[in-house]
C-alpha cells in the first residue's frame, strides 16, 4: 500500500515538473511579445508625447500584464523617489531583480540591459533608435523562442511522465 502511494507521488511530481517546463516554453514567446508591445508603447510615449521616463514607465506598467508590470512599476517608483542612482542603474538592477519571475532567458535580458544604458540620457531620436534596435533583436528572439516551443513543449511533457515511470520501475 505504501509502495503504491510512493509510486503515485513520484509519478505525480515528475509529471507536474514536466508540465511546468512545458508551460515555461509556452510562456516565453508570449512574454517576449508583450515586452515588444511595451517597448513600442514606450517609443510612442517618448516620440510623440515627450513624457518623462518615470511617468512613461508608470503608464506602461498599468497597461502591461502580470510579470512585466511589476518590473516597469518598480523602475518608475524608484526613479520617482529620486535617489542618487542613475536611470541606467535603476533599470538594470530592476531588470535583474525581476527576471527570475519571467520565463525569458538571457538573450532577452542582455537586450534589455543594453537598452537601459541608453534610456533617458540622450535626445529623442537617439532613444527611439535604441528602442527600435531592441525591438528588432527581441523579434528575432521571439521567432527562435517559438521554434523552441514547437520542439520542446510536448517533449518535456512526455519526458516528465516517462521519467517518473522509469524511476518508479527502477526503485520498485
Amino acid at each position, binding site marked *: 500500500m505504501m509502495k503504491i502511494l510512493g509510486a503515485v507521488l513520484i509519478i505525480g511530481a515528475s509529471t507536474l515538473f514536466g508540465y511546468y517546463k512545458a508551460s515555461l516554453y509556452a510562456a516565453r514567446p508570449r512574454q517576449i511579445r508583450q515586452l515588444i508591445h511595451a517597448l513600442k508603447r514606450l517609443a510612442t510615449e517618448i516620440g510623440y508625447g515627450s513624457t518623462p521616463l518615470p511617468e512613461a514607465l508608470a503608464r506602461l506598467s498599468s497597461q502591461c500584464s502580470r510579470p512585466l508590470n511589476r518590473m516597469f512599476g518598480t523602475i518608475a517608483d524608484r526613479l520617482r523617489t529620486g535617489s542618487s542612482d542613475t536611470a541606467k542603474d535603476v533599470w538594470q538592477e530592476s531588470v535583474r531583480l525581476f527576471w527570475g519571475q519571467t520565463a525569458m532567458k538571457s538573450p532577452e535580458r542582455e537586450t534589455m540591459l543594453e537598452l537601459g544604458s541608453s534610456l533617458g540620457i540622450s535626445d529623442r531620436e537617439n532613444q527611439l533608435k535604441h528602442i527600435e534596435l531592441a525591438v528588432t533583436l527581441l523579434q528575432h528572439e521571439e521567432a527562435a523562442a517559438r521554434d523552441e516551443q514547437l*520542439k520542446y513543449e510536448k*517533449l518535456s511533457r*512526455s519526458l516528465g511522465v*516517462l*521519467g517518473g*515511470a*522509469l524511476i518508479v*520501475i*527502477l526503485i*520498485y
Partner: protein
Amino acid sequence: MNFDINAIFQIAGIGIITAMIHTVLKQMGKEDMAHWATVIGFVVVMFMVIRLLDELFQEIKTIFLFQ
C-alpha cells in the same frame, strides 16, 4: 522464484519505458539524446542482469566447489 519473476518484469518495464523515451526524443529531432537514453537504459539493465548472474554463480560455487 518470486523474486526472479519480479526482476524479469522490472527489466521488461525498463525496456518499454526506454523505448518510449527513445521514440519521443527521436520524433522531436534529438537523435543524439535518444541514443544516450537508450544506452543508459541498457547499462542499467546490464547491471541488474549482472547482479542476477552473480547470484547464480555464487549458488553454483556453493553447490559444486565448496560442497
